[in-house]
């Protein structure tokens, strides 16, 4: 069971958890509950291709709601090694369980410099609270 309190967050509202897998550092990425609520009425997600190289703080995925297209950013550089194939046909998962079943992609980290810029849960909650007002 993933606890939001144990994740790290980007100012652009992605969450990330990092784990060792087979000697590599692998980041699992998703978008926060706050982001899902702000996006409203999601209708489409364009997942990145497995194998794609992503750059830190650059968009790697796009979501469409009824009224808006938004970019999703990767806080780290690396290679996409898995994507959550169940999401495109079950976008409600992003709202129901954004931190576990709603994961978007796993990225094998090649440069973890961006990790230092991330917020812990308390700092992220503060950011959301400021943005909500």
């Amino acid at each position: 069971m993933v606890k939001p309190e144990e994740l790290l967050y980007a100012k652009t509202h992605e969450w990330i958890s990092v784990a060792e897998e087979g000697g590599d550092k692998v980041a699992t990425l998703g978008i926060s509950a706050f982001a899902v609520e702000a996006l409203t009425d999601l209708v489409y997600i364009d997942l990145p291709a497995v194998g794609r190289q992503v750059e830190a703080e650059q968009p790697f995925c796009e979501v469409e709601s009824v009224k808006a297209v938004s970019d999703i950013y990767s806080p780290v550089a690396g290679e996409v090694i898995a994507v959550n194939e169940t999401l495109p046909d079950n976008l409600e998962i992003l709202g129901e369980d954004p931190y576990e079943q709603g994961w978007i992609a796993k990225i094998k980290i090649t440069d973890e410099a961006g990790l230092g810029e991330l917020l812990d849960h308390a700092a992220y909650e503060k950011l959301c609270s400021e943005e909500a007002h």
Partner: protein
Amino acid sequence: MPGDTTPSNLTECQLLIDPPADGAWNMAVDEVLLDEVASTGQPVLRFYQWQQPTLSLGYFQAIADRTQHPASASADVVRRLSGGGAILHDRELTYSFLLPATHELSRDTQRLYDSVHQVIVKQLSTQLPDSAEWQPTLCDTPSVLSRREEPFLCFQRRAQGDILLQRSAGQSPTADHKIVGSAQRRRRGTVLQHGSILLSRSALATELPGFNDLTDQHLAADDLIRCLPSQLANVTQLRLVEGKLTDALITKVRQLQQAKYQSASWTDRR
């Protein structure tokens, strides 16, 4: 602006009123402005029109789906940065409103949508007598269709807050026609909202009547350009400053127009 009594402590918003241009130029301007607003933090309100009838595809739409609307097959085509359905831009006024992440309305997709549309509804209402058969209103019964079931054309879809001309109560049969639709693109908190105000029916989309067709009015784009900017500035707490694209931005627009919006790799990417 002449006669402007807006408090000077409000954030400045650059007002751009552009001449008609081709679709690739228009979309390139909007994208360059999105990056510019993200960089400067200064909002921009832009009005523009189209040199020739142009079909704009929503960001995720497939070019092959143009076959669903054969009447516009001869029109130029461009792919937008924003989502939603295709729009046949012809006899309309188009606007773009770009807000930085620091503006409170940039954070709330629906509030921004509604705020802009409420201003347009109010302005369109002033053109009509209370007894008019058709009255502008915001859509409150959005479509429940799945993405795959949605019509190809934006103006045949219904989203919360779209502007409809609705036949007044007591008139029959009841009916409505969408006359304003908007869509957003968000980048790191900065938002571009652009939308089309359908003034009159296009010969390439005769199934979509505009405001003038239904109301027997002769509303021109210039009439709206005279009224809407100050009203939009009021509701967003901004102070308008008339401006124009700088030479540096024009160079960026030209590059993006050629490299992206005129390119098949962008237009035909899906």
